[in-house]
């Protein structure tokens, strides 16, 4: 998939090419490479804003491993990524296959289905919170009307964590569905035609044509979504604020708390740096896969 088309060879004037990429290289160096490297450095120092960092070796990492809030946040991040990403992408593929069929009103359904993704994140998050309100929320009212008691949705770990997952899946499902849908549309129709000529049923076509053709895309999407979900901050921060107690924090919110509640920029940096190896492995794998050019096969 590398987008290198036919190009002009400039010979002696090749240096001019670098003028075109200079702006991007500058922001990459200043706001991606430099921060990443300095974060790794900070994680090995005692560092508070305004005070020069001082090298302390592995002290921050040992602190974190002994910190029950951090350990809990790692477990929650694993749950968030493990369940959230897989359920979200599984549903997205099913809905994409569903929407890839012809039926009257299909494009209307598809357009309306996009709405959760199109609406501002803050708006839908706050709407969820009000729906879940213990005393006045519509969810408890409906439960009460059919004879159940009130549930404190955000007041206990299991339901709070579930709500975080439900919101995440609800919000990002349309995005991945669209991607799978365009992947499905990219499968050459001749293959289906050939299958039908040979007498394949729709289920067989799905199993032996659609799924193998979409597999590469599905794997790449799972990995990319895993990294993004690992870094998600706003869902947990605004849905539960990490509560009840500090039980539903993910790594991003616990690091925010270290840095901007307690001024511990060193612990905050180390919280993220511990995730860097996972992030790097996934990114390198995805880039290789994309460069292979056969991600769909």
């Amino acid at each position, binding site marked *: *998939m590398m*987008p290198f*088309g036919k*190009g002009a*060879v400039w010979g002696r004037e*090749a240096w001019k*090419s*670098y003028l*075109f*990429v200079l702006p*991007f290289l500058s*922001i*990459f160096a200043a*706001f*991606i490479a430099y*921060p990443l490297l*300095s974060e790794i450095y*900070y994680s090995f120092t005692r560092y508070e804003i305004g005070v020069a960092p001082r090298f302390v070796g592995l002290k921050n990492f040992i602190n974190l491993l002994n910190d029950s809030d951090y350990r809990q946040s790692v477990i929650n991040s694993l749950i968030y990524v493990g369940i959230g990403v897989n359920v979200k992408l599984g549903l997205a593929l099913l809905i994409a296959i569903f929407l890839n*069929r012809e039926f009257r009103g299909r494009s209307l*359904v598809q*357009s*309306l289905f996009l709405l*959760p993704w*199109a*609406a*501002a994140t*803050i*708006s*839908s998050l*706050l*709407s969820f919170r*009000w729906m879940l309100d213990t005393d006045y929320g*519509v969810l408890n009212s409906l439960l009460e*009307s059919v004879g159940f008691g009130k549930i404190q949705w955000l007041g206990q770990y299991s339901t709070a964590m579930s709500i975080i997952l439900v919101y995440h899946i*609800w919000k990002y499902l349309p995005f991945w569905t*669209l*991607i799978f849908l*365009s*992947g499905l*549309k990219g499968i050459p129709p001749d293959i289906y035609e050939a299958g*039908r000529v040979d007498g394949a049923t729709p289920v067989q076509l799905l199993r032996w044509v659609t799924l193998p053709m979409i597999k590469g*895309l599905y794997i790449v999407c799972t990995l*990319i979504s895993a*990294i*993004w979900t690992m*870094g998600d901050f*706003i869902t947990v921060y*605004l849905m539960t604020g990490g509560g009840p107690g500090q039980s539903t924090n993910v790594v*991003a919110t616990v*690091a*925010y708390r270290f840095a*901007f509640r307690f001024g511990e*920029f060193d612990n905050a*940096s180390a919280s993220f740096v511990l995730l860097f190896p996972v*992030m790097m492995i996934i*990114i390198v794998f*995805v*880039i290789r896969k*994309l460069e292979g050019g056969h*991600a769909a096969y």
Partner: protein
Amino acid sequence: MSHPGSGQREEHMQVISREVGPATQGGVTRLWTPVWTYAVATLILVCSLFPIYHMVLVSIKSDGELAQPSLFPRSPTLQRYLDVIQQKHMLVTHFRRQLLNSTVLSLGTAILTLGISTTCAYAISRLRFPGRKAIFRASLFTYMVPSSFIVIPFYGLMVKYGLVNSYASVILAETTFATPYCIWVLSEFFKTIPIEIEEAAIVDGAGRLRIFTAIVLPLTAPALVALGMYAFIFAWNEFLYVLVLMNSNQLFTVPVGLSWYLNQDSIPWGMMMAESTLFSIPPIIFYYLFQRYMVSGLALGAVK
């Protein structure tokens, strides 16, 4: 961004499914296919639309009805929208200012992102020089890094250069994270422009920069508008970086301003939902205007 030729493929597939679609495979199938199709479609739409409907519903319910679980407003009112716009409630005294901040930051991000990504994408797809593969990898890398992972050192950097509480700090952060997707989509797009056009211009003695501004960019205009919107919405939705980099009500954007309500003893939900609805209108309009362009470059690249 729609794949060149995907429209044709789409039409082709429709032709095929009309010819040998499942609906022609017997009476029972013909009857049941539509029934379960619309049952599934309804289920999907109810789940995805209810929270949005709930937001609008609460925003127009009268005060007396707010605590009731009714799914239809009995005496709908637009009073809260007026209160928000006229800043008549103690909690919305900075709404217009915050909306302005959101707009300035998003516009700044859109313009800067387009400037950086068009030039870089052009070089990647059209020019040959050592390191262009590495540059494209750097952009893919940036595309995947979650922005929250570097918010700590980014904040440190902004403190060091005295940029905390400035528009510039947020615009730089948003531009950094919005650019890679635009580079990806644009470099695919540039490849589809016939190189003969540019070669003819070279023969006529035009310089690279002139070819870029006078020939390539005009041909790319619709894609540029769509990507500008992408960058705009990207910044419009930003939360963490504004929360970290801006320190007063005057400087907050609408999302961070809204989140401040949650610290109130008694949360004014009706007002919040009105403000939320207003804030969601621009991105929804943008998405629907440019829906066909918004299909991700991710799929575009990966299915090739």
